């Protein structure tokens, strides 16, 4: 039973469903005391624009599309190296007792504050410094995440999936054409969507037929000739990713060409990184209707199609799990499972960013307070289910090769800190699921690779713009309003992303400098948990001031902060004790740790101020007949 991927998936889904009807309802009824009779901000300020009572099925689709993306894919793909069991357990248990509680809490508190954002609520409950802390955390969080994404996209293009280049760039052109057609020419949506999706598949077909190994452009003539000859003889594995090509050339005894491929791949990856940073700058100043908004449509089709195909493919293929339930971290050279597993899988178990989505738009559209349960708690559990599917793609879809001697997941050093190796594992594993549905492996893999790149590019586009706004606000709050203009702020934003994307760390084993990918992802995880901790602090304070039980939120808060601090301390001690000290990373680590301690200090001070002083726009209604209210709420929670 322990090696049946379908059974594991269904048991995990059942646990999530049981938690929804059990723990979720308990929290909604007894802790957050959601009351369907109390008017929500959507009704109180109904304007049909921002405040709009929206039924659960509509809002769920909206909210889920808002929170699901690349995060729950990358983290689990790394974390399975500790074995499938801890990864699945953390996703399931973490979602149930921390992630979904966080999302539901953020939504519930924001409801009471008339739909104000969690940043505003933090300022109200904790103090004005909390808002500045929010801005700082978000700056680090997005710079780190986007640095990772730049790295990942450029490596995917060069090292693993040159067949994703044509579709990814082509998709941008299709999206721009769609943007003009929808927003300027006002053409009908249905046919345009069909044409857009048809182009997507056409581009994937073109990409599969014409992979673009851009690293060959930087190779010397002799090596390129050897490569072409090997390619024509069918000795190189399609789609000609640099890693597989170098390995194949090495095996066939052509060491010079193999070395040339590796060297050219490194240079080309850096070139792609610069190109992507340029893209980020341009995309962040372009009008959103031209690229970002039309790509939204294509992305949503890819998201839902990917989810359904992965699930159905898994059920049809029902592959055996090849990974060990628990791996010996020491034997495989991995860092200790505790605390690193818990920061590696951030989204998928808990994500601080969800509080921004929950308290931004969603809260203003809740029809009834009790709808916060399916939207806040339910959508996070659904994201947990997506993370479980990704885990299965890696531990079962990949097959035994990845888990036997020399395979990707048999030693920490094989992951090579690049992150693209792990994404390639998801792509390959997912491709196998799709092949069970009759999709040719190359097409299945290309579909998933293109979807991942499209998500990463969209995130890069929008996050650079967000970072620009963030930088503008930081400049303004520091009294440097003159610097708060579009181009200066965009440059600072891109510089922040570029700093992390191009950062190299010294690898003692090989004696060479390598991209800081994995370390960055861990720092992203800790910063994301820090943001989640700040939100859980707000929620706990809110409950404390209302004299309600706080254990359900304060224990997850301290757990997340404790885990993050421990991980950062271990990282810091390693960075400090390294043969060659990496000062930029040491400084970033210290800054993130300082922010965590600052937050703990704010928390202690806020609790010490005692109960009351909620600063609510309207006071909580006195519960004259508490039992009756509970009964009403209960009936509406099903």
């Amino acid at each position, binding site marked *: 039973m322990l090696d049946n991927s379908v059974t594991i998936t269904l048991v995990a889904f059942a646990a999530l469903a049981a938690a929804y009807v059990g723990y979720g309802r308990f929290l909604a009824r007894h802790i957050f005391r959601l009351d369907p009779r109390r008017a929500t901000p959507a009704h109180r300020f109904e304007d049909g624009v921002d405040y709009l009572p929206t039924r659960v099925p509509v809002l769920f689709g909206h909210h889920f599309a808002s929170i699901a993306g690349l995060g729950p894919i990358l983290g689990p793909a790394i974390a399975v190296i500790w074995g499938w069991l801890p990864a699945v357990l953390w996703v399931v248990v973490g979602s149930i007792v921390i992630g979904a509680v966080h999302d539901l809490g953020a939504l519930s508190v924001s409801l009471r504050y008339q739909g104000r954002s969690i940043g505003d609520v933090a300022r109200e409950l904790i103090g004005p410094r909390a808002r500045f802390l929010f801005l700082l955390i978000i700056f680090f969080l*997005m710079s780190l995440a986007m640095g990772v994404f730049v790295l990942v996209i450029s490596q995917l293009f060069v090292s693993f999936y040159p067949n994703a280049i044509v579709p990814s760039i082509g998709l941008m052109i299709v999206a721009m054409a769609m943007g003009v057609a929808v927003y300027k020419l006002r053409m009908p949506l249905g046919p345009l969507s069909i044409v857009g999706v048809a182009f997507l598949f056409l581009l994937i077909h073109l990409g599969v037929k014409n992979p673009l190994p851009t690293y060959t452009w930087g190779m010397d003539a002799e090596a390129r000739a050897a490569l072409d000859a090997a390619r024509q003889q069918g000795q190189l594995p399609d789609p000609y990713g640099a890693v597989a090509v170098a390995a194949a050339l090495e095996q066939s005894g052509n060491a010079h060409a193999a070395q040339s491929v590796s060297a050219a791949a490194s240079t080309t990856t850096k070139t792609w990184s610069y190109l992507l940073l340029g893209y980020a700058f341009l995309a962040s100043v372009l009008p959103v209707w031209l690229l970002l908004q039309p790509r939204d449509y294509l992305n949503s089709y890819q998201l839902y199609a990917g989810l359904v195909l992965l699930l159905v493919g898994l059920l049809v293929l029902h592959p055996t799990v090849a990974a060990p339930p628990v791996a010996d971290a020491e034997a495989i050279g991995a860092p200790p499972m505790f605390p690193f597993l818990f920061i590696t899988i951030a989204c998928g178990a808990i994500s601080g960013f969800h509080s921004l989505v929950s308290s931004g738009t969603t809260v203003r559209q809740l029809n009834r307070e009790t709808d916060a349960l399916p939207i806040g708690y339910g959508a996070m559990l659904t994201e947990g289910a997506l993370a479980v599917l990704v885990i299965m793609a890696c531990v079962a879809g990949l097959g035994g090769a990845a888990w036997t001697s020399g395979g990707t997941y048999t030693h920490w050093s094989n992951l090579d800190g690049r992150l693209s190796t792990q994404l390639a594992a998801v792509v390959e594993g997912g491709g196998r699921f799709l092949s069970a549905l009759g999709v040719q492996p190359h097409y299945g893999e290309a579909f998933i690779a293109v979807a991942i790149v499209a998500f990463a590019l969209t995130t890069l586009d929008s996050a650079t713009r967000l970072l620009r706004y963030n930088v503008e606000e930081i400049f303004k709050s520091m009294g440097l309003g003159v610097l708060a203009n579009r181009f200066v702020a965009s440059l600072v934003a891109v510089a922040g992303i570029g700093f992390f994307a191009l950062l190299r760390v010294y690898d003692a084993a090989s004696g060479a400098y390598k991209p800081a990918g994995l370390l960055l992802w861990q720092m992203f995880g800790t910063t994301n948990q820090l943001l989640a901790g700040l939100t859980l602090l707000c929620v706990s304070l809110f409950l404390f001031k209302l004299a309600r039980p706080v254990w359900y939120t304060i224990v997850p808060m301290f757990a997340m902060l404790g885990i993050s601090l421990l991980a950062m301390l271990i990282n810091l001690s390693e960075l400090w004790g390294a043969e060659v000290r990496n000062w930029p990373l040491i400084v970033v680590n210290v800054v993130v740790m300082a922010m965590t301690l600052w937050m703990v200090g704010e928390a202690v001070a806020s609790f010490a101020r005692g109960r009351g002083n909620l600063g609510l726009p309207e006071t909580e209604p006195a519960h004259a007949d508490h039992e009756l209210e509970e009964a009403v709420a209960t009936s509406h929670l099903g």
Partner: protein
Amino acid sequence: MQPEVSVILIRENAEQLSGSGCCGKLEGDALRAASDEPFAHTRADQSACGRLHRLLRKNFPDSGTTPRVRVVTVDPRNQLYLAPKLWRDVCRYRPGIREGLKTALQLFALPAVVINGRVVSSRKRPLSPHHVLHEVERHLRPGTHKPSPGTNASS
């Protein structure tokens, strides 16, 4: 119990919906701090739909447990809800083959208004409050409809 009239207002929210996951979503607080208004054009459509929504709610308020007129505002990127909803309305209200296909295949420009499975907006006049109210009244009182005089979007 189904409402007598089902109105679907289809327009985008002034925010990003999919593709970024939660990190880097262009919405909410972040937009408030923006020096420019990236979604200005969407905002205009959203406001026009908002006025229409308020007008419908004012003219046809809920009474009893099942509203006679149900107004739903949907973002067209939320196809998980929108596509089945349009098909359901077409099957339920049977507006005719041509009109039904136009709705089900989403042969309309944004923003759009669909009443009882029939697209009543057009590319040139996407949101005419007078026309929409007239349509709703026609469905509520077949044969005795009277357009509300002087109604406009700013009501």
